[in-house]
């Protein structure tokens, strides 16, 4: 009999898991423990509408307090879990120890930290949680100089938001193009151009070696000697799975907590879901770790169902989006291993998609302001529909008809 379930990490996956557990009839004791002070909330707006002041804090929450009360979900917020003891099936929190029959870890990620001299100065921020976003927001005002280190999603989204709010913005990217790990050169170029057109200064091939300032950040120095004056700095150089709690408990970890397609860890009573997991992608036939809302939600559902004894596999085609200025990038699938890349539409018209094929089937798409292709692609990818590559570039043909 499973009488006690504890979910650790009250973020996207944790909130979904308790929801699904109750919805699917789990009637035992259900505890959600999280180290942040707020009710579980969505993170994507933190770099977008929330940062821009277009969305208030209470609109970030997935559910309000009455939901947790009504469904008897015990919330232990502002409570960090410091230890898991699989032998006694217990966890140690800030002030108490709790017993579980099943434990679900939804620990998310931690930001990769800058290590150069000066990295500890005041005014240098990461963006992972609401508290970070509130701090960053306090710096944003017209003509404030923002230097953003890292031209990935978080760097570029915050750059766009800061610029829209009137800041002078510089993005420093170490690689030769922005979003180099997540998008094709064509999409990188497009977004780079959009940022430049809005007055963001994007500098590639620039490695930050030092941050200078007396008590507070004043300038950022790169390896080639170039310097950028800054009133504040945002660092977006990637994230690592938050797996130390799990590895200390002896769970198998390797770039994340290793789980199977049922979200089971190497301990039969412990499950994991979301950004913190290294999991098998059934569709792509290899192990992956993702940082995306969809993956967190779907793995959380899978974990919840399996904890209740239903055998359900996590089998999804990943998807993701990014908003920068008035552009929406919609991504589905994983492009690694493609043997053909076809651009559909015209980037100068600001509506296009990049299609990745492998053995004539679509494996991924990056759609810019092109929701139709994106939605069609999600089905085509999932079904492995063979496509006629010759028809793909023809914008007068719907993507779903390029068969």
């Amino acid at each position, binding site marked *: 009999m499973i009488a006690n379930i504890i979910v650790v990490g009250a973020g996207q996956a944790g909130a979904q898991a308790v929801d699904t557990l109750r919805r699917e009839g789990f009637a035992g004791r259900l505890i959600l423990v999280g180290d942040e002070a707020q009710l579980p909330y969505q993170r994507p707006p933190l770099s977008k509408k929330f940062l821009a002041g277009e969305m208030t804090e209470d609109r970030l929450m997935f559910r309000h307090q009455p*939901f947790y009360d009504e469904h008897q979900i015990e919330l232990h917020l502002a409570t960090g879990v410091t230890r898991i003891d699989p032998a006694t099936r217990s966890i140690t929190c800030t002030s108490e120890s709790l017993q579980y029959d099943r434990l679900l870890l939804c620990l998310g990620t931690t930001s990769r930290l800058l290590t150069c001299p000066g990295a500890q100065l005041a005014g240098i921020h990461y963006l992972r949680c609401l508290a970070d976003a509130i701090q960053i927001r306090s710096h944003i005002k017209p003509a404030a100089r923002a230097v953003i280190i890292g031209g990935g999603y978080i760097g570029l989204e915050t750059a766009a938001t800061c610029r829209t709010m009137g800041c002078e913005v510089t993005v420093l990217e170490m690689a030769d193009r922005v979003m180099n790990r997540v998008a094709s050169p064509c999409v990188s170029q497009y977004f780079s151009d959009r940022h430049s057109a809005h007055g963001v200064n994007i500098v590639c091939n620039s490695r930050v070696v030092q941050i200078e300032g007396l008590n507070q950040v004043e300038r950022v120095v790169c390896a080639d000697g170039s310097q950028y004056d800054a009133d504040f700095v945002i660092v977006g150089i990637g994230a690592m799975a938050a797996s130390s709690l799990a590895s200390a408990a002896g769970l198998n970890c390797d770039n994340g907590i290793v789980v199977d397609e049922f979200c089971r860890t190497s301990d039969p009573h412990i499950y994991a879901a979301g950004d913190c997991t290294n999991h098998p992608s059934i569709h792509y036939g290899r192990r992956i770790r993702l940082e995306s809302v969809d993956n967190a939600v779907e793995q959380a559902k899978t974990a919840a169902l399996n904890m209740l004894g239903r055998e359900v596999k996590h089998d999804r085609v990943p998807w993701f*989006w990014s*908003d920068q200025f008035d552009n929406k990038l919609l991504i589905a699938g994983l492009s690694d291993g493609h043997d053909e890349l076809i651009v559909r539409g015209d980037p100068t018209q600001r509506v296009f998609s990049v299609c990745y094929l492998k053995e004539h089937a679509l494996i991924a798409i990056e759609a810019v302001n092109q*929701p*139709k292709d994106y*939605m069609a692609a999600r089905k085509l990818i999932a079904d492995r529909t063979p496509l006629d590559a010759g028809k793909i570039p023809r914008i007068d043909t719907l993507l*779903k008809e390029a068969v």
Partner: protein
Amino acid sequence: MPRIVFIDANSRREVLATSGISLMEVARQNQIEGILAQCGGACACATCHVYVAPQWMDQLPAREDMEQGMLENAWEPKDNSRLSCQITVSEALDGLEVTIPERQG
């Protein structure tokens, strides 16, 4: 406070909504099943799809391109399909009726 009616295969629920937030958020606050809203209102998932009662269609601002494109390949789109995250609730929508599709996505 405007009243909104959510209808699905088994039930009809009338709820009081707060003006200024989206119809999707009203559904979420009231635990309306069947509106998944995975992207949280970013117009990126099409899992907040509803059918608006025909008499209300004219009262709503037209779909923007992004919403239109998402809907065309959503599950069973119809002329009265909308993404609920793209509709802002106001007093003018008092009495609005929407039906939830059998599926989302």
